[in-house]
């Protein structure tokens, strides 16, 4: 029996560029590029990169095996040393966030949900291919639990055991052992040996990238700012998937341009623009909602303390003896000791780092983003707020997620916050003058 009106409708492939996530990225990118004046010319590479990867779904080439990382705690130097390429899987797409909700409770962290959603979709963006292995450092609960989910999706997942206390010597050694174990795992995966030469080359790669980042970081010390925070976030987000050497070269080019800007006395913002320190859950493209709102409202993000920028690239490794053994241990130390991730039991370091950043970057206030469901940031809010309160630094705590529907409300809050900072500044000047 066939009914004339009933028929099977075959799946109609939609080209990626017409998909929802492409649209989402397109919107944000247009916003980043077109709604601001005087974007640095060297940023064009990054704009084009994101357009190509997120809007057109172009493939990214990589060398050797692909090792996905779900956290900055995975030592990428080791991955490079084995001739593989690391790629950070943390995702900022609202589209994937919604997709990932089928794995995680809806109240859980958008970032983890989006990452799962991305990994589970047929059309993984950024398109880098299927990772040969995913390294999942056991940091926060949600990342921990996503391990088996990723495994169920058919990925080879390696749980890199990460301690939750960093003060003790025992945890330091535990972590060193974890990292050594990881090296063994990578050896099995790649079938290559960890050599002094290879590791040193990897150190040079990341070291140079870090040096370039630090240079970029130092230009943000200038007041008035010569570069906006949204561009910095875009640059550091590109580090997730871009070829490291090319990325470094482009950042170095950007640094050259910034030096010229500095010499010319260029201003990217009004000289009275409130300087904001950004902290908390990481802004990951295309979810640059909050930094963009701040800068649209006339503020400027001058520094950040988040794992998508500063925390990822700032701390550098020191090695005393350039031998595999010492280099691996140093590496382990670098990924544990300076880390200010809120997953640790105590986090005096984060508070101190924040206060120091406010001081050295002459920030007028702090915006603290916590993804709803990102419990560790939510829980740490009180103590951080108290520290800032004592230091007389205003802080705005924003609990949000990837959905764009609270933009209106957020913009009111951010504007009010910026206005209060401006007033404060005026008052201070009056008191001084």
């Amino acid at each position, binding site marked *: 029996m066939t009914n004339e009106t009933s028929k099977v409708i075959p799946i109609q492939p939609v080209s990626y560029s017409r998909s929802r996530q492409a649209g989402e990225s397109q919107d944000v990118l247009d916003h980043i590029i077109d709604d601001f004046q005087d974007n640095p010319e060297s940023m064009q590479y990054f704009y084009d990169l994101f357009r190509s990867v997120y809007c057109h779904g172009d493939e990214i080439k990589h060398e050797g095996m692909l090792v996905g990382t779900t956290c900055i705690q995975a030592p990428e130097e080791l991955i490079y040393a084995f001739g593989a390429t690391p790629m950070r899987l943390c995702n900022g797409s609202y589209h994937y966030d919604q997709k990932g909700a089928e794995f995680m409770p809806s109240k859980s962290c958008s970032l983890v949900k989006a990452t799962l959603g991305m990994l589970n979709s047929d059309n993984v963006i950024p398109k880098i291919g299927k990772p040969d292995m995913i390294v999942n450092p056991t940091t926060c609960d949600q990342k921990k639990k996503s391990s088996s989910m990723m495994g169920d999706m058919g990925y080879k997942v390696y749980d890199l055991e990460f301690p939750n206390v960093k003060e003790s010597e025992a945890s330091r050694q535990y972590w060193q052992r974890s990292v050594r174990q990881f090296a063994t795992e990578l050896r099995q995966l790649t079938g290559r040996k960890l050599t002094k030469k290879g590791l040193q080359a990897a150190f040079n790669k990341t070291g140079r990238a870090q040096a370039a980042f630090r240079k970029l970081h130092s230009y943000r010390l200038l007041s008035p700012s010569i570069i906006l925070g949204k561009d910095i976030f875009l640059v550091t987000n590109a580090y997730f998937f871009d070829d490291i050497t090319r990325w470094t070269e482009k950042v170095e080019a950007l640094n050259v341009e910034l030096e010229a800007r500095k010499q010319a006395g260029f201003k990217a913002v009004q000289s009275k623009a409130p300087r904001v320190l950004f902290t908390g859950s990481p802004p990951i493209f295309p979810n640059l909602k909050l930094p963009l709102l701040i800068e649209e409202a006339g503020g400027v993000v001058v520094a950040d303390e988040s794992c998508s920028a500063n925390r990822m690239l700032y701390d550098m490794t020191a090695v005393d003896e350039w031998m595999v053994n010492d280099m691996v241990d140093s590496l382990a130390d670098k990924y544990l000791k300076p880390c200010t991730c809120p997953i640790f039991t105590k986090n005096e370091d984060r508070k101190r780092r924040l206060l120091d950043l406010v001081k050295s970057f002459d920030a007028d206030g702090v915006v603290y983003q916590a993804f709803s469901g990102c419990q560790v940031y939510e829980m740490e809010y009180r103590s951080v707020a108290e520290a800032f309160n004592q230091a007389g630094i205003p802080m705005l705590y924003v609990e949000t997620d990837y959905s764009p529907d609270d933009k209106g409300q957020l913009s009111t809050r951010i504007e*009010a*916050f910026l206005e*209060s900072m401006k007033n404060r500044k005026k008052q201070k000047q009056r008191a001084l003058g």
Partner: protein
Amino acid sequence: MNYFAGIDVGSTAIKVAVVNETGDIAGVHVTASGSLFHKNSLEALNMLLSNLGLKRTDIRYLIATGYGRKLFKEADDSISEITANAIGAFEAGKAFGGVRTIINIGGQDSKAIQIDDTGNVVNFAMNDKCAAGTGRFLDVAARNLDLDLEELGEYHFKSEVAPLNINSTCTVFAESEIIGLLANGHGKAEIIAGIHYSIASRTVRLAKRVGIEDRVYFDGGPALNKGLVAALQDELGRELVIPEHPQTTTAFGAAILARNEFEAEQSLVPA
């Protein structure tokens, strides 16, 4: 004579305030937002001007605030309603011996603001996305109880028994909870009192986040609701300061700011 205006384009109502050179209120006007709030805003402004017998050119500086502030291009400048509210409350509070803490319940949001002794915002908190504890909540409740919004205040005091507990924090769920309570034979008065206490306790929690100092200035449309005021005062355990036109404090603040900005600009022009 120079006049200055502030317009607060809110989600439920548009408020306009005009002040003279000395910062005294010349007049206020409140109208519903409706769907065409740009048009309505202009109408509200013009209405007030004609009531006051002023021309559009008499308004030397106009500042917009509220959700629609950016879309109201006729304004000279815009400012967030939090700052405007703080300024307005600070100015209005002078008559009451000064205030440091402001609670504002609006149509869609509720805010608590702490200001310093010069009127600057020190700290503020806003409800998150959800509309629980806002004017909208009262709106929905009034509709469910077949009452006018204005009647809620009177009913509050008619209750003979203790206010009922309204547990739901979500407006939508609260609606069904109210229906359930009515079905169980509870009186409207105690339900209304319960609603007021529910909103009051949420608001107090918000206010505690910013810190409560001595007197609390309470504004926004729901401040006209005497029952809510009583509940809030009960929960706070503090003196409340309620201005004459609680709805227009924010617009008034914008107008004051307009006056200040104008003067600041004038002082920059060489004589």
